Structures are given as structure tokens and as C-alpha cells.
């Protein structure tokens, strides 16, 4: 089977936070707020570099090194996220595009939309991500992955 040059996918996640919209929005819009939750898992991942320029046209950057044996896939150590903000409506909407690298492999390019809505004392957040994933993803160990993984996937997909 020939390898596709690009595959497209869209998904969304709805999440309700037990906090007012100003606090939830600030967690996305301020460097201090975002650094507190947007990161790899503490015990498995060490931050290398973080940049955060939250304005239309601004850039965000985050790279980190996975500790030995802790990466989601065995064949890489550094994951890199780079984003550019395209639309910001305070406490309502954020649209940014970002891409991911695993080491030097280009994995995906995505458009992410965050929509904030007040629901009583809580904040409803809707994330929609439209992405294209690139050849690097499949090269990242697709053939080498164990048969156990494959059978688990077979089991869950049926």
C-alpha cells in the first residue's frame, strides 16, 4: 500500500471547568497561566524551551525532552510545538495554527479553535482541531510497533 502524502482529520473536545470565564481564559492568554498546565507530564518530560507571545500574529513555542523510555513512542526524545495566533476575542474565542515535530520529523499541522462559554458558575470550553498529518507520523515506528499494539487496536476498533 503506497504511503499517503497527507491525511486530514477533524475532532472536537468539550470540557467544562469549575471556574469563571475570566480565570479560564487567563489560563490560555497569560504566560504565567499557560505555563502552569500546558506542558508534558512532569515526571516523564523535561521542558527545554518555552516562548509565549499572545497576540494576533504572535508566536508560541514549547519543546521538551522525554526521559529515557518515557516517550509515547520509543523512537524519539524531543517533541516540539510551534503556534501562531490568528484570532483573539477576549473571553470568547482563540484561533491558532500549530505544528508538531518529533525530533526532526514533521508530524502534523493543525488549526485549533477554542470557544469559551459561561454556563452558570462554570465555563464550557469547546476545542475544535482540524489537522493534516504528514508522512513523519507513519515513519515514526509504524512498522516496528509490536503486534500486541495492533491486536489491541483491532479489539477496540471492532
Amino acid at each position, binding site marked *: 500500500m503506497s504511503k499517503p502524502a497527507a*491525511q486530514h482529520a477533524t475532532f472536537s473536545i468539550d470540557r467544562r471547568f469549575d471556574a469563571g470565564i475570566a480565570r479560564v481564559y487567563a489560563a490560555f492568554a497569560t504566560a504565567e497561566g499557560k505555563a502552569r498546565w500546558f506542558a508534558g*507530564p512532569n515526571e516523564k518530560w523535561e521542558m527545554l524551551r518555552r516562548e509565549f507571545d499572545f497576540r494576533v500574529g504572535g508566536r508560541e513555542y514549547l519543546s521538551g525532552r522525554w526521559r529515557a523510555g518515557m516517550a509515547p513512542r520509543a523512537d524519539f526524545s524531543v517533541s516540539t510545538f510551534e503556534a501562531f495566533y490568528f484570532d483573539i476575542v477576549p473571553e470568547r474565542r482563540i484561533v491558532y495554527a500549530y505544528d508538531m515535530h518529533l525530533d526532526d520529523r514533521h508530524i502534523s499541522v493543525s488549526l485549533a479553535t477554542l470557544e469559551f462559554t459561561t454556563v452558570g458558575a462554570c465555563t464550557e470550553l469547546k476545542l475544535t482541531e482540524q489537522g493534516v498529518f504528514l508522512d513523519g507520523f507513519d515513519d515514526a515506528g509504524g512498522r516496528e510497533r509490536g503486534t500486541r499494539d495492533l491486536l489491541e487496536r483491532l479489539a477496540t476498533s471492532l
Partner: protein
Amino acid sequence: MQTDALSTTFAALADPTRRAILARLAIGEASVQELAEPFDISLPAVSRHLKVLEHAGLISRGRHAQWRPCRIEAAPLRTAQDWIAERRAEWERNFDQLAAYLAETAPGKTPGDES
């Protein structure tokens, strides 16, 4: 999303004999004869199943003239679905961290208060 490719994959998986063949191939390569052994069906019937699996990209076959071993291929199952699953899991994990941060910094809450 490549619906056609996914449909082909799922159609190929929608047969218990073909799933059993895949399960056998997950252990290692096998010839058509070896694959046919556990089943009460003819070699041509097994060959037809193998063709469906091969067309879906779920297996590949060696090019030796006499012995064409079948081998399982993971690629069709790890396409856009995997990408979504990984991105989704990453977001959920980050959102869990965000929820914890919001709880820690809730108004009226003193630092270190675990109640």
C-alpha cells in the same frame, strides 16, 4: 479523513476468518498452507480472504515464487485514527492539568489547602 481507505480496512476486518488470519499473522509470517490449517475451508477460499486483506493493506505477501509468506501490516490501522487519538489524549491530559491549576488558584482558597 480518508473514508475510502478506512472503509476498505473495516470491510476487510468484518469477517471472523480474516480476523483469525490476522491474529495468526500477528505471531509471525505464515504460508497460505499454514494459514489454512486451522480452518475447515479450502485453500482457494483462504486465498480469497488473503486477497481482501492484501487489498486493504492489512497484510503483504513475499515475492518468492514458491513460498509467498504472508505478513501483517500495521500501517492502515495507524492512520488518521491514531493521530486523533494521540492529539485527543494530549488535550485531555492538558485539560486535567488546567482543571487542577484552576482548583488550586480558586478565589478564597489558601495555598496548600487540600480540602
